């Protein structure tokens, strides 16, 4: 009979690398309850410039955490951001790790 003695893993190792960036963290937080928001609504909530938001949204989209939708209202383009199932799972795991760090007991 063998026993394995594994050292407990600190919850910081379970933090999601994509979500350590404060802007990406805020984007995911803004989308958490609403699920889908317009680009401008996310920009206003996160309080960053359009270009900074676009850059971080592209990274989240590449990671599969956010889906970007494009539509037109008349001639005006409308961009919507939707948190994906994968993104929600990662976000929940990230929050759980933070919760463990905040309250280790």
């Amino acid at each position, binding site marked *: 009979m063998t026993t394995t003695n594994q050292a407990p893993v600190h919850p910081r190792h379970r*933090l999601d690398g994509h979500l350590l960036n404060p802007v990406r963290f805020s984007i995911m*937080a803004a989308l958490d*309850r*609403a699920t889908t928001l317009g680009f401008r*609504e996310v920009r206003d909530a996160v309080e960053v410039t359009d270009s900074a938001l676009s850059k971080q949204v592209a990274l989240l989209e590449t990671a599969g955490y956010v889906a970007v939708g494009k539509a037109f209202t008349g001639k005006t383009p409308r961009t919507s951001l*939707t948190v994906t199932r994968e993104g929600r799972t990662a976000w929940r795991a990230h929050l759980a790790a*933070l919760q463990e760090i905040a309250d280790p007991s």
Partner: protein
Amino acid sequence: MDNQNSISPAEARTLLDTADRLSRRAHESARWPYVTFILALGTVTSFGTLGMGLTTGSAFGLTYVGTLAAFFALIVFFAVSIRGRAAFARSRRWTTYIASWFVTYGAAIAVVAWAHGSVLWSGITSGAILAVTMACASYEARR
């Protein structure tokens, strides 16, 4: 990205508070026209179909025109209040809310057309519209 960054318990609590605050603020600023719209849609179409199902002649005509007028006024309100914003525009949740309303509304219109004057069926279908839309609005308001 470096996962080895040490985050202190105090920093983690701050991040959790920030996430919760941001999430609530973003949702609250975007959802009120939608919650108002679905509540009003349910009320207008529920009482409208009930009235149409139980009246005849000029009373029916007045109820029909009144319901249509209220419905179009509601569409105008909604279009104006969400102008420039795309929140929930393609969300699965809102598609489900509207689909649920549409199914009950279709049933109520079917009663108006084929079981006109039936208090029981008019009550059931119009009540279903009200119940479904109130449930959707309550669910969204509590998120």
